[in-house]
């Protein structure tokens, strides 16, 4: 069956008709000339390869009260994603082939995006001994990204071994960089605001020290290293230096670290409590610059759903994390496109091509060209929308953008030629 996406602008450039044949792109032809069994009429919106998230918490198994693979992947599709990496900190932890295959299976059953399970680096995320990384890699889930995210692999020897071991199957360790002793009881970024609010500080150095150590370890053992959610100016500097030395390191930034600062903690509203914490305006500027110049390779959501009771409480008692899938692209438009720091082509690299490459997801993040899989999203960059937590597809409501007007709406998403989102609503 042939499907036509009429009048869409690949990378925001010249508008065309995109003809899909089954699960692949058949041709890009001048507007009005595409012929097919089904025609989706657009009006010149931006066409991007389907977004790929390297950092998603889907919570299933174990915390289905916060999110399920079904609700989380619906949120992903609405955000323009066609593939997400499901983090390992579930209950049970995704540290065996059995658990990662279960996640894979539930993702298939939902059908909204490709769910790529992330395997835990250490058994139970305890940081004591390696999980069966090879078994997860060889399983049906074909795990390539390993992370104890939520916790840092802080033992340097264990980290070295993990970096070395995953080379055997082209894996990558995605480090949650947080020196545990420096962040005991930490509640927010350590600085002027934490001093004023009397909340225990999470110093930038606790992130930077681990990143510095790990890039040197990666260099020493010749391994591939990925760093989750960079949040500080110093972290960007270290990555920039590491790349200049030829170290095989990649890094991500979350939408919230591109937009929000630690001043929001002054509300004591835990919707702004996240790990790593919101930092200063100088840090925000540094991660934007790092994302613009390629020091930071990707935007990853760190979508972290929490049920209301875990946020409707005092700050110290609240869970860390915020929703991200349905707002990520709008934040990138606001912080990077509107300021002219990134073109749409560069956004496609940072939100689709690069994360797919890091995660070794071959079907996604490919050029908008004939013969490629039709994993696509169509964005109306000018459309303004009011963020209503109750209207989000996620099972949880902990978005920091409630009542905020954002720009950029995902109009349609296609997973291997099948529409998962049409007219801004779920199509499945």
């Amino acid at each position: 069956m042939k499907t036509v996406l009429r009048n869409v602008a690949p990378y925001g450039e010249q508008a065309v008709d995109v003809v899909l044949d089954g699960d692949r792109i058949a041709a890009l032809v001048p507007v009005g000339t595409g012929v097919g069994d089904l025609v989706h009429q657009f009006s010149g919106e931006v066409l991007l390869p389907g977004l790929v998230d390297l950092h998603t918490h889907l919570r299933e198994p174990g915390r289905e009260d916060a999110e399920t693979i079904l609700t989380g992947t619906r949120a992903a599709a609405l955000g323009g994603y066609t593939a997400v990496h499901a983090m390992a900190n579930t209950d049970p932890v995704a540290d065996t082939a059995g658990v990662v295959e279960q996640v894979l299976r539930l993702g298939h059953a939902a059908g909204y995006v490709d769910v790529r399970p992330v395997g835990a680096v250490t058994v139970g995320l305890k940081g004591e001994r390696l999980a069966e990384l090879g078994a997860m890699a060889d399983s049906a889930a074909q795990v390539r990204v390993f992370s104890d995210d939520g916790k840092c692999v802080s033992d340097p020897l264990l980290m070295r071994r993990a970096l070395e071991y995953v080379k055997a199957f082209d894996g990558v360790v995605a480090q949650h960089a947080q020196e545990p002793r420096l962040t005991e009881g930490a509640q927010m970024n350590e600085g002027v605001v934490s001093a004023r609010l009397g909340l225990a500080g999470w110093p930038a150095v606790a992130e930077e020290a681990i990143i510095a150590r790990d890039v040197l370890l990666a260099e020493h053992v010749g391994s591939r290293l990925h760093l989750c959610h960079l949040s500080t100016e110093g972290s960007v500097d270290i990555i920039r230096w590491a790349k200049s030395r030829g170290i095989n390191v990649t890094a991500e930034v979350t939408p919230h670290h591109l937009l929000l600062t630690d001043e929001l903690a002054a509300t004591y509203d835990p919707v702004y409590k996240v790990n790593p914490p919101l930092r200063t305006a100088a840090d925000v500027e540094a991660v934007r610059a790092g994302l613009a110049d390629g020091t930071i390779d990707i935007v990853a959501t760190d979508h972290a759903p929490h049920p209301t009771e875990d946020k409707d409480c005092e700050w110290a008692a609240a869970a860390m994390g915020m929703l991200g899938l349905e707002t990520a692209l709008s934040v990138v438009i606001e912080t990077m496109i509107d300021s002219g720091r990134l073109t749409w082509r560069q956004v496609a690299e940072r939100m689709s091509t690069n994360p797919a490459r890091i995660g070794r997801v071959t079907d996604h993040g490919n050029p908008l060209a004939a013969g490629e899989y039709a994993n696509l999203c169509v964005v109306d960059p000018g459309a303004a929308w009011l963020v209503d937590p109750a209207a989000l597809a996620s099972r949880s409501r902990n978005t920091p953008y409630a009542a905020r007007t954002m720009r950029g709406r995902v109009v349609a998403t296609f997973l291997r030629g099948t529409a998962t989102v049409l007219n801004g609503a779920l199509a499945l």
Partner: protein
Amino acid sequence: MQHLLSTADLTRDDALLILDTAAELAQISDRPMKKLPTLRGRTVVNLFYEDSTRTRISFEAAAKRLSADVINFSAKGSSVSKGESLKDTALTLQAMGADAVVIRHAASGAPHRLAHSGWIESTVINAGDGTHEHPTQALLDAYTLRKHLRDGDGDLAGARITIVGDVLHSRVARSNVLLLNTLGAHVTLCAPPTLLPVGVEEWPCAVSYALDQAIADADAVMMLRVQLERMNASFFPSAHEYSRRYGLDAQRMSTLPTHTIVMHPGPMNRGMEIAADVADSKRSVIVEQVSNGVSVRMAVMYLLLGGAESGIGGN
């Protein structure tokens, strides 16, 4: 201003109104009838998530002297210890018709949450939240300072106040720095660098690591409690070393100007941050701080609850 959450919210005029009101109310404690009818029929809940008998009693005495009904809600042995959330407790108090909630909580910002989350309509008075603030303590300290240094009148312009000790974990220090600065005083914080917060350089005060210099020309020295367990977290090497470098003993006290007073918010670690003979000396106004606490808390409750709207701020 419906709530008292932070001394940062008080203007100089607000602070002086509270101090002047407290001064009038202080007379009540000298009378045979230590009671005013002002808050008759109003309900004040003391919601204490941390044990602090002295602060609770002070608020209770203040509320009772204004004829309010007082309900003490201690977290221990209550539904809170069975895991009830702050929100559910707040909803309960709201249903009970609490006009004011005096809250002491281990979590910084808990009073702010209580006041601003829509759980409750009551006036919220912060009786100490985590390592954030303790505004009524700062007000009673300012009251005590004004009485001794300014004859109970006006502000504290030009007064030199040195606050010594565990500033990092001290809600008393935060509230005092802000309030005393608002009242025109020059505040110096003195502590080992480990017990000063990163970011303290933005506070409206001076910072010193050397006690002898920091107190040399002080009009008042306020010693903060230092908990011994800080030693185990390597904030300082030993109680002995802390006491030698940052404790106020008789020898150090003898170097102070003759008019200088010594304060402590209590409870004291005698022999640690303050020597027993200093605490009991004529310069010490520590016991007086306690009685001033009742007057100041009466003033705060009267001004927040006595009228149709708060008498603090909003002009």
